[in-house]
């Protein structure tokens, strides 16, 4: 348990490393610079030196966006509002068009104001639909997303007909163009990023409590609704400032994916915020880098693909949540149970001949366990590998080691204690308790065993009249790594 936090801290670095290598190679080969390693290296150096102004602007923009999207996205993910970002990013389109119409130029300020107003109107409309009709959250989001977007499309096609409209480049808002980020856009992103950092640090505890337990937050007098609207306003800011770089369609990924990755890696909200912002930053820069390498690849999709790749890694290999990690843990547990069952059989064989002699032949083992000799040999090998038993020089019989003997008698004791407990305390008849004890014997910790013994007055025979062994408690070497760490916590008192 104590080694986990440092592992968790190391993980992001590992993830980034493992991300950079394959994707760099892929993008480089796609961009055609793979055959020319000097060119590849040269381009990398040129990117890292940030000599091109376009690269400087793109990297700065993507980094700022990564931070602000990561911070806000964290709250979207923990509040189960992940798709609100998607809805708002589509809903700003009519605002963008209206802002353009109003100023008749591609003025960032007018477009910003228009888009923020449209986004805010969108989130408010979702709220209104939810409160006044029976329609569910998903339907309300979809209605706003598609309805606003349709109005936007109509406006955009109307604008393109205007004499000024052709040069508007308004369609760039769909996919974004990181290379075209100007200093005005950058200033906007800077302001938005500072705002989101300030909001999440200053109002951290208010946001935390209203996200975790809205009823409690209202009960202690917090304006939960107002906080929600403020968060949505900030979200609209962020989305609008991101449009130039990644476009309407992909901004929702920048919000959700790094935050969801962080959600898989940590159990505390403040760490999740920092991690999400960090992942956003890293994927933003990675996306820019890949786009720079592979000449004309668009930046937005590359950022999103890097973020999704990182998410995939976290999903598979996160120390606590990872699918592969959990699969490996389950497999290790299954193997341990199998070994322990073999140990128990060895004990039973020894017991049946009143502990005369130490060695049990593989044939005896196979017969007891009703299996083939090959299976028995494999199980014997597993025991030998874990130093629970050693093979007799002739290779045909097993001798328990000290540790093996210890663990075997513990298991048998656990089994019989549990059977006794079930028949005594739970009034279950003696012929029904075996199956249950077969499972419980592997998970009983010493502490619970002490309690059971006390409860059963240190009885020495089980319901079937067999003796309950007493392992030497004084010398309790760890029978094998992981065996004493129970997969289940001891049952609550």
């Amino acid at each position, binding site marked *: 348990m104590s080694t986990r936090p440092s592992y968790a801290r190391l993980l992001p670095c590992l993830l980034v490393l493992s991300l950079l290598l394959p994707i760099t190679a892929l993008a480089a080969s796609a961009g055609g610079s793979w055959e020319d390693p000097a060119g590849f290296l040269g381009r990398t150096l040129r990117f890292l030196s940030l000599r091109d102004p376009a690269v400087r602007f793109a990297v700065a923009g993507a980094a700022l966006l990564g931070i602000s999207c990561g911070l806000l996205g964290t709250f979207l993910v923990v509040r189960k509002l992940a798709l609100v970002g998607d809805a708002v990013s589509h809903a700003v389109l009519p605002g963008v068009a209206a802002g353009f119409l109003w100023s008749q130029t591609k003025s960032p300020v007018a477009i910003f104001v228009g888009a923020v107003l449209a986004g805010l109107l969108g989130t408010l409309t979702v709220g209104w639909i939810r409160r006044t009709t029976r329609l569910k959250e998903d339907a309300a989001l979809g209605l706003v*997303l598609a309805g606003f977007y349709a109005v936007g499309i109509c406006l955009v*096609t109307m604008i393109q007909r205007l004499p000024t409209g052709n040069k508007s480049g308004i369609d760039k808002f*769909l996919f974004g163009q990181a290379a075209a980020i100007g200093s005005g856009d950058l200033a906007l992103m800077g302001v938005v990023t500072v705002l989101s950092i300030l909001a999440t640090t200053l109002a951290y505890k208010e946001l935390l409590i209203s996200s975790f337990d809205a009823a409690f937050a209202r009960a202690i007098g917090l304006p939960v609704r107002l906080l929600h609207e403020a968060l949505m306003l900030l979200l609209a800011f962020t989305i609008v400032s991101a449009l130039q770089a990644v476009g309407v369609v*992909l901004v929702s990924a920048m*919000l*959700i994916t790094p*935050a969801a990755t962080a959600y898989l890696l940590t159990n505390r909200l403040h760490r999740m915020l920092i991690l999400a912002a960090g992942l956003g930053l890293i994927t933003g820069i990675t996306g820019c880098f890949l786009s720079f390498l592979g000449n004309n690849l668009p930046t937005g*999709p590359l950022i999103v693909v890097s973020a999704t790749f990182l998410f995939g890694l976290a999903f598979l290999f996160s120390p606590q949540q990872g699918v592969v990690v959990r699969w490996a843990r389950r497999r290790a547990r299954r193997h341990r149970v199998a070994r322990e069952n073999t140990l128990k059989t060895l004990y039973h064989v020894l017991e049946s001949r009143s502990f005369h002699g130490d060695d049990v032949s593989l044939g005896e083992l196979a017969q007891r366990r009703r299996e083939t000799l090959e299976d028995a040999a494999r199980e014997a090998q597993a025991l030998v590998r874990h130093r629970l038993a050693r093979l007799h020089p002739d290779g045909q019989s097993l001798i328990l080691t000290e540790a093996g003997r210890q663990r075997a008698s513990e298991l048998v004791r656990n089994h019989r204690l549990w059977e006794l407990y079930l028949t005594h305390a739970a009034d279950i008849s003696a012929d029904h308790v075996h199956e249950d004890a077969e499972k419980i014997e592997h998970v009983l910790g010493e502490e619970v065993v002490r309690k059971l013994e006390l409860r059963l007055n240190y009885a020495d025979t089980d319901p079937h009249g067999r003796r309950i062994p007493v392992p030497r408690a004084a010398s309790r070497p760890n029978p094998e790594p992981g065996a004493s760490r129970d997969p289940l916590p001891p049952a609550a008192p």
Partner: protein
Amino acid sequence: MSSLVPDFDVQRVLVTPWTSDATMNGWIVLMGFLVATTCGWVGQYLLLRRMALMGDALSHSILPGLAGAFLIASFLNPGTADGAGNARGATVMYLGALAAALVTTLLIHWLHTASRVKQDAAIGIVFSGLFALGVILITVFADQVDLDADCVLYGEIGTVGFTDYFQLSGRDVAPLPVARMAIVALLTFAWIQLFYKELLVSSFDPGLASSLGIRANWVHGVLMLWLSVVIVSAFESVGAILVVAMLIVPGATASLLSTSLPRIFSLIVLHAAISSLFGLHLALWLDCSIAGAMVVTGCGLFVLAWLSHVIRVRRARHASLPQDAPPGTLASPSVTPNPP
């Protein structure tokens, strides 16, 4: 500003479309109607299952499926798969879309069952990641893939080729896209008729469905696959994002007006008819995207239904809860506490 909204010229907006351009506009309205009806029917089940945004997800994640399918097709026999116009193109498109739908559905399901990521976040991650992948594929392999991300996203009903006709025993019956959409619509209708009760039960109560021997997972899978077929048939005329509107708006409008499922399905047809007809005229008047205008008209119908719903609720609430206490027979005698 005045140049943005053209004058309302009755001749241009209302008369000419049905005199000199009647055939073309007729096909456009029919196409819009078929798309809206089919999407609305399938979308109604999404609404019932509270997964309206799966439509959004699928409509985006189909892009890499299409790109991949075209790529493979051009790889297998170079120079023949040129776009969506011919029959081979259509087959390739449908196969790619089905594969994309399958992958999306399975990935989303896997993400939110095998980790603590919630379903909405899983949807967002999967579709945006796949979409980004699709855009990259199209850019990198621009020569082999005759597909444009803009065209997938936007689509425009006015530019759908209404020139190739579907022929039956030597006579022109309908333009190919319309004929294809009509077949999808008919299949959807038949499918809903055949599996009405299975769809209903598994949408309403998956637990009950499985106790009745209906495999809820299978129903879900089939629904998703069919959804992808409908989206692919629709997206060249309305674009991926407006498909979402066609999926949700008719059903949402109808369920504000009625609570009975059969009536909702007929209201969806009505909604589709009104929005495609009026949408065409709106687009002719404003000279803007026809598909966009159809959706805007549909949304206008939704707002009307919403307002009438709100007014009805408000009136009923006003009548039902007078400010004074409920009738005396029901009021309780207040008991004052005796401190023990």
